[in-house]
């Protein structure tokens, strides 16, 4: 299983999980899709809307 890390959704402000290295992710709370950048290999960040 790929490692997962948390990012904060800009739409619902809940934390959602992102698989390590993924550049697109969907918030499982509200369904918003985001482009993801990585601050560190363990810290994803929402960059903008997908």
């Amino acid at each position, binding site marked *: 299983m790929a490692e997962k890390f948390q990012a904060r959704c*800009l*739409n619902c*402000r809940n934390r959602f999980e992102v698989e390590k290295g993924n550049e697109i992710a969907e918030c499982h709370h509200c369904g918003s899709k985001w482009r993801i*950048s990585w*601050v560190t290999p363990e810290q994803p*960040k*929402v*960059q903008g*809307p997908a």
Partner: protein
Amino acid sequence: MVLNRKVAFIDLSKGKVVTRDIPLELRKKHLGGRGLNWYYIYNNVSPDVKPFDPENLFVVGAGLLTGMPMLGTGRTQISTKSPMTNGVGDANMGGAFGPEMRYSGFDHLVIRGRAEKPVYLFLSDGEVEIRDAKHLWGLDTHETQRAIKEEIGDERVESMVIGKAGEKRVYFANVMNGNKNAGGRGGTGAVMGSKNLKAIACRGLIDLEVSDPEKFMEYALQMNEQVLSTKWAKTLSRLGTPLLYDVSYTTGFIGTKNWQYNTPGSEGEPLEAENLQKYMIKHVACMGCSVHCRHRVKIDRGKYAGVVAEGPEYTMMGSFGTLVGCYDWDFVIKGNDECNKWGIDNLSLGAVISWAFELYQREILTEKDVGFRLQWGDQDAVLELARMIVNREGIGDILANGFIEASKKFGEGSEYYAIHVKGHPDLHTDERGVPSFALGIATSTRGADHLRSRPAIDLFQLPEDFLEKLIGYKIKSDFTAYETKGILVWWFELYFNIVDSLGVCKFQSTFNCPHCPQYDEYIPLLKYTTGMKFSKEELMQIGERNYTMERMFNILNGMGKKDDYPPARFFEEANPRGLPFMKGRKLDREKYEEMLAEYYRQHGWNDDGIPTDETLSKLEIGMPEKNFPEVE
């Protein structure tokens, strides 16, 4: 000893200086930095003094912790009566000037008068020398600093200087230290220029001896680790303040085309923070900082090839970005470099330029008025108008006097499109969807601003029990709520005052991250550094005293409740864009009034926003009493 730094009273008209100890009693009441700066101004600048009168004071202060190896304590506070607001003019600058001023023997410089010819001050080993600066007048801020280092013959000299904008008394001129550290807000550079004071330089070797070195170092390292362990600091270390853009343009609270829109939408994608990385040479930091949030960047190709600069910060992404419809990092970097060299507050400049663009769009200004067309996204037009403002050429001479005076000249309802509070331009954020942010810019003593109280953590919708533990009051988690946000803004006003009075960087405070150090951590730091013991309640009381003194200065200068409102546009026009929870939002006037009343009550002010006698007595604030010593 940290507490043995002096205050120098400098009369430029007489060319005389006297130095004094800073009484411990004043430290206990105001700490240092912003707090003590306003103690001197409140008592010595009467309401009849105009900002450019020689009798206005220009005060420079180091925080009580400035120069210490933690929490980004390279901060310097610069305070004066502002030409933009005729009230509190106040700026906080990073870099290394404040620490060097302390090593030179001084914590505060209280400057009045006007030199007959351009001068600069040189501080060293407890002495202040007034030097001729005729050869520096006309140089940009980078050239000036270089020339001073060469003249003194020491590369480690630090100086705070003005550029062309300050010399020309552009109302939003700033002071600069290093490549990009700005005492940006309030028009401090214009007042410095009005005194014919081109620069203040310092070089010192007087150690700052702390009270308990062993415990201090251990705790300082612990503080750095606490900050660096946060996601906030890790992101800031990599992306700098542009990281905020990704949130604001995605969500919809970034002023676009002079706040006609609240985000550029997908058009703004090129300005995402990650896209700055390709320009980066390295990260640099202010003194005492281990976060290093500043980019040093280079443009390799294209129209602006060869520009090497520091920054830009998030503010510039609005000023030469979304506010004027330009979505090009090259241009933002170029504009930032020019602003730094001119010595002008890029935030105010961008707001004034974007206002002119909207007036042109609405045909209140014409090509004949300006000399060329002002079309959104036209980089050459933005840069040319900026240059005209700095040099006070043509319509630039009117715009250089800020919103209040310029809108009187332009008439035709132009004031409505000027986004300011108390005459002070707003940051490019769009506060109409976030009531706490709106209240914060409205009540800020220096006019519209994000660094006087912005409770950025309100956006996180933190659990209410967590907020209660942090703030000490029940605060609603919902950032669109008005209730309890008067208390939240009050709390941050006090807290940011303490941060500025200690000389700590706000980016290493609870501003954007609830896990960064605050009062509980400052108490041991103060004890190990100065030997002084404070409780959290005592520090909050000092914050309240300092803030109320600034409020009283504004009130004595004719301000009041009428000046505590966000721009009218935020009540009238709903957000046209943004995520679903942001689109369609505008401020509700009735709810805003209730929030403002709650805020006044929390401060102990009456319904008109005037501190009550009981509050003033509790805070030991009397009417002003002049105490600038004789300097014959």
